[in-house]
């Protein structure tokens, strides 16, 4: 039987743990309200094991679900005490989200089955020149996303002291300044990008950035950008 599971996997990678669970339930033709937890847990773990053996990187979600399944399984093994009488079936922990998940999948099917604009039906074509006066410049429809996008692009190319409002630990900024000065003592100038490749992590980038800004403000360095290449270089004064 495991071979059977695996064959399906290769053609059809599961998106998440829920997908896998649904598959196992369908495959075993079991009742979702009465999941044979031992069987399903075993197959689930087999699958995870197989993924690992294939060197496929496992999303954390799969591991979390494995833990949940195992936990539910062990709860099922405990003899029901009297206190537990009115307690719900431990499997509810699996069943409930599973039902929600299935409902959402069916809702997604409903959506995709509708008469879709651009696929099943079309609106009138327009040659924009007809009715719109926007000519010459490339006009784009704007929305929030475009706005953020535009700002992101600017941030990417930024070379200014305008980001000081970003919060960061001022002590680490001072530290970084001295690190940068160390670099300058060895070489007279350095490109902007070189400074960032030093430290990969996000907050480090911000700290480095703040450090540079501070140095510019203090007139410790001068920045110049190459007109053609756009490369920014810092010079130690």
């Amino acid at each position, binding site marked *: 039987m495991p071979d059977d599971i695996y064959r399906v996997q290769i053609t059809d990678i599961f*998106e*998440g*743990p*829920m997908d896998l669970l*649904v598959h196992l*339930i*369908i495959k075993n033709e079991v*009742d*979702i*309200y*009465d999941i044979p937890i031992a069987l399903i847990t075993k197959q689930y773990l087999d699958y995870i094991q197989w993924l690992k053996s294939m060197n496929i990187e496992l*999303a954390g*979600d799969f591991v979390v*679900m494995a833990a949940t399944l195992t936990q539910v399984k062990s709860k099922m093994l405990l003899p029901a005490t009297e206190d537990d009488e009115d307690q719900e079936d431990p499997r509810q922990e699996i069943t*409930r*989200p599973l*039902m*929600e*998940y*299935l*409902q*959402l*999948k*069916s*809702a*997604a099917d*409903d*959506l*995709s089955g*509708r*008469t*879709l*604009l*651009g*696929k*099943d*039906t*079309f*609106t*009138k*074509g*327009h040659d924009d020149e*007809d*009715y719109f006066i926007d000519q010459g410049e490339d006009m784009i*429809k*704007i*929305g*929030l*996303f475009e706005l953020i996008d535009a700002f992101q692009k600017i941030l990417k190319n930024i070379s200014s002291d305008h980001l000081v409002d970003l919060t960061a630990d001022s002590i680490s900024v001072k530290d970084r300044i001295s690190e940068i000065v160390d670099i300058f003592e060895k070489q007279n100038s350095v490109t902007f990008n070189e400074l960032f490749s030093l430290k990969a992590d996000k907050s480090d980038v911000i700290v480095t950035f703040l450090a540079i800004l501070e140095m510019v403000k203090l007139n410790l360095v001068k920045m110049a950008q190459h007109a053609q290449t756009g490369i920014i270089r810092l010079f130690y004064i």
Partner: protein
Amino acid sequence: MENLKYIIESLLFVAQEPLSVERLKNVLNTAGASDIKNALKELSDEYETRKGSFYLNEVAGGFQIRTRSEYTSWIKRFIQPNPPRLSRASLETLAIIAYKQPIIRSDIEYLRGVDCGGILRVLLKRKFIRVLGRKELPGRPLIYATTKRFLEIFDLKDLKDLPTPKEIAELGNSATDKTDRDFFNDTKSTDQDKGNNT
């Protein structure tokens, strides 16, 4: 205004999105809402009698002339259709947002069981969803909701027009009465009138 029907038709013709009665009223400032509604009805009836290649569709809070699906195969031979390309995963995420909006990312991910960041980005970019605001929670997470464009693409008059999800029959062979319906029950509380996005 005898001609109201055709004036409206001309506007529907040049419009790039569904036109609401309200919007039409603003342009046709002498006509009242009921005149406009009547004219729209007449126009729709005329298209139905004629049985030409297009019809008047009520969608996304407005009206739009669209081709009948009988002609889709011909149209597809002619233009490169620009279908709303969505992956299964994107569609499921969209379904959650549609039914549970307003909703924050972590709730979406709880339901799907997987990370949705990339998908949200795509849906935002394609204007199927939008940011409604921030939730008063630690980290002030962004709240997502669907757009008018979503209604337009999926041929929905409004959010109330979303189909009631089917009971899950295919899977379980036991009674469905235990089904957890909470999932879709909040739909009604959804703000209808916030649908106006670009």
